[in-house]
């Protein structure tokens, strides 16, 4: 008899099956992910998810006998009161031929819940947004691990040899083991030579000296100058390196004209931006400012849920944002990003003030300001909205100001392509 420990076998043997399964159920899973995104908070895009799917494409049919027709005989255990000839009424009006038998190994595969891992979830999320693959890879590994010194070790590549420590250990060992110095040997040799030259020779002393010499040279041979024991290497550990901190302002118009689908679109936009930022910065604060004719800072829940009535004055949000920057996020310490989502409505005479604030206060202290206009494609037939035509003026002058229209999730990504292009540019160019 053999006992084998299979626990050591490589894990995730069923990964291949899982991938095939996910591919198969893609349509359903994508729908489920969409639903999940609606429920999620922006900062929680990453992370697994329990997905419930209705598995139509996952059915595995086989020939089986029909239910509820024909004649069947069966035996049951646990008779208490029945005797031959008794009749028993069927459970539900005679529809189920043998109600008590139920579906023995039938197809109870209507819907079931399973867990999607973070990567699988993001994959599907990205796919919806039509991200290029390169970007996906970058996004997924958000924190680049950095080698960090972490003590010393006795093993490693030659390049990491720590000379000082190695020599220190070597010296300690040499002293402890009484390794003779070269100088001592030479002195002894000259002394022997002197004695040999002398006449008459002191033979006894000479043999003692020679014996000492041979003992010392033997010791020198046996106790190495540097022994493998002495070697010390610098140890490097790869730790995810936190980068500096950033704050992301989410500004959104919540007037009645922003319908649920538009908000959903805006939410994806915010989510993606957040994901981008978390890749660059270890900590990203989120600030939500909603506005109608006046602005207020709210929590995420209220931000996406509550609907207000009334008109729209965008500048109120900008004022609120500046106030918060002054209070809490000094541009010296924080990288400031702003994302604004709106359906483009604004009071005509407010635009001037908006542009002034943007150019004068906000754009100089932000890393990036993205404006996204959500709405039905056919809605603005050639006609630009108030906000759009206003912002268009300054867009040309500031390269870290981006604006886009989006009517479907697929339109959102191009905004970020620009963001990426500029940030890569900045990284490769002369950094401030």
């Amino acid at each position: 008899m053999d006992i084998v420990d299979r626990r050591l076998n490589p894990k995730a043997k069923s990964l291949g099956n899982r991938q095939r399964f996910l591919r198969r159920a893609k349509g359903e899973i994508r729908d489920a992910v969409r639903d999940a995104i609606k429920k999620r908070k922006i900062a929680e895009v990453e992370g697994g998810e329990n997905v419930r799917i209705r598995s139509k494409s996952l059915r595995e049919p086989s020939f089986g006998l029909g239910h509820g027709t024909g004649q069947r005989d069966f035996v049951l255990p646990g008779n208490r009161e029945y005797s031959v000839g008794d009749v028993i009424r069927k459970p539900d009006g005679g529809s189920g031929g043998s109600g008590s038998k139920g579906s023995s190994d039938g197809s109870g595969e209507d819907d079931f819940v399973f867990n999607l891992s973070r990567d699988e979830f993001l994959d599907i999320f990205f796919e919806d947004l039509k991200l290029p693959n390169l970007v996906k890879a970058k996004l997924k590994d958000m924190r680049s691990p950095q080698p960090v010194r972490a003590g010393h070790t006795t093993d490693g590549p030659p390049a990491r040899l720590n000379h000082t420590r190695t020599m220190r250990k070597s010296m300690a060992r040499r002293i402890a083991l009484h390794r003779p110095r070269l100088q001592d040997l030479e002195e002894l040799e000259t002394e022997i030579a002197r004695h040999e030259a002398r006449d008459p020779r002191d033979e006894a002393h000479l043999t003692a000296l020679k014996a000492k010499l041979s003992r010392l040279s033997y010791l020198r041979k046996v106790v190495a100058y540097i022994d493998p024991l002495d070697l010390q290497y610098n140890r490097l550990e790869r730790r995810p390196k936190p980068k500096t901190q950033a704050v992301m302002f989410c500004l959104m118009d919540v007037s009645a004209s922003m319908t649920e689908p538009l908000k959903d679109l805006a939410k994806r936009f915010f989510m993606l931006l957040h994901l981008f930022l978390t890749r660059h910065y270890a900590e990203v604060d989120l600030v939500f400012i909603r506005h109608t004719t006046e602005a207020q800072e709210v929590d995420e829940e209220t931000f996406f849920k509550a609907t207000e009535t009334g008109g729209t004055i965008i500048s109120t949000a900008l004022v609120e944002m500046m106030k918060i920057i002054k209070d809490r996020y000094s541009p010296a310490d924080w990288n400031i990003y702003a994302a604004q989502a709106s359906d483009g409505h604004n009071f005509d005479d407010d635009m001037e003030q908006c542009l002034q604030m943007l150019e004068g206060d906000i754009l100089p202290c932000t890393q990036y300001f993205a404006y996204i206009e959500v709405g039905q494609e056919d809605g603005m037939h050639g006609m630009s909205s108030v906000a759009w035509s206003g912002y268009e003026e300054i867009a040309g002058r500031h390269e870290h100001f981006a604006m886009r229209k989006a009517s479907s999730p697929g339109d959102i990504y191009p905004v970020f392509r620009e963001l990426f292009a500029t940030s890569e540019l900045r990284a490769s160019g002369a950094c401030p």
Partner: protein
Amino acid sequence: MNAPFRNIAPDVEPLFKGAEWDFELVKKTYDAIEKIGVGEMGLDIYPNQIEVITAEQMLDAYASIGMPNMYRHWSFGKHFAREEGMYRKGGRALAYELVINSNPCINYIMEENTMTMQTLVMAHAAMGHNHFFKNNYLFKQWTDATSILDYLAFAKEYVTECEEKHGVEAVEAVLDSAHALMNQGISRHPAKRSSISQQRDKANKRREHEEATYNEIWRTVPRSALPSLAPDADSRASLQESATLGLPQENLLYFLEKHAPKLEDWQRELLRIVRMLAQYFYPQRQTKVMNEGCATWVHYEIMNRMYDRGQLTEGSMLEFMHSHSSVVFQPKFEDKYYNGMNPYALGFAMMQDIKRMCEEPTAEDREWFPDFAGNGDTLGTLKDAWANFRDDSFILQYMSPKLMRDFRFFALHDNSAFPVVEVKSIHDEKGYRNVRKMLAAQYDTSARDPDIQVVNADLSGGRRLTLQHRVRNNIPLDPDTCERTLHHVAHLWGYRVKLIEVYADTGKTVKEHETLPLP
């Protein structure tokens, strides 16, 4: 308290005391078990290989129909996700062990089992199931324990190769269709095999006979004078075609593998792989009660013998009794936990009952089972049963009136036309035989599976494949799944497929389904 019930052997130390186990201990305990199982009870087993696995690996084995090293398919991923979900929620506990009918016999045991459970599962699987696999006639006839692991390795590699060459989707499409027909991929009767040389001998003998009995006079008889001997050309051709195709054929997968006009070689090989697996599992489906009954009875016997000689502590024995009694629990039909007969319960009860009849028979037992009641040879009687029966025949042959009374079995008849079911027989003098017959029929796989055969394949004309379902007891196929499964048949056949449902007794057509392959 327990002292009077057991022969105390003070010099024997218990094999273990706590719940912890290590490989040393498992080995020592296995040796003790084998000494009893093989040495005393005379079980005949394949060499065992015990493999310790984690929960994840157990889930994995579940998902791929209990086989190690299975080829890849999305349905296994789906089952894995489902099982995992239920396991994580705590809705379902995992099995303590899993055993493969192979030589050497592979026993998977879970790492989180206590030492008592490891002892139990080794006695159960490594002795009980193992003996059954090696000795039951169905397994001997249909499965080849020595080659199954190699075959699985081959299958996995072959499927992977096909995926590389032809793409995952293409392979999946074939496997999907093949899996749908898995239950129709079984040959229920051993094929008559004759080698080429035997066939040649036969042909030679026939010719010699013709030459020896040649009579000139038959040449002078005009051909038209023998109308009955010369059927018209058309029907003769179709008869000949049926004969060369081996029709009617119950093994759909076999037929498609050999004769589907459009399949490529690798697709045929895939069908063959699925068919071989279906065939490999067929004996297990037919012997659930016996197989589990045998294993449960063997573990019960071995554990008790170990306890009797002091190799198990009382604590272990209590743990064992707790787990054993929950395994063999049979809820009554009204119970909300009732989900059909528990094969462990029925199997174990029958084995215990046979033991009782061998050792302490009543007058009733002597009347019903004259050939073994009171023969005193429990193990011999059981081994004979384990070797030569399957579930339905076993129940028919060995179920005693006492057992039927104990289970309080009663037989019902359900006609869908009426709103009530009728009690036909109960556990009394008049009813025993009928109850037993009906219970046995419930375990007859060939009666439970729909009887579907290939009856015609037009290879020269429209290439239509005709299947026939022989409807028994007025129960036609479930129309919804039938439609979808038929699509899979059409996909493999490549042309139009027709399924005719006819009454088995009158031959009258009930229903027809027809489908075309999707472009």
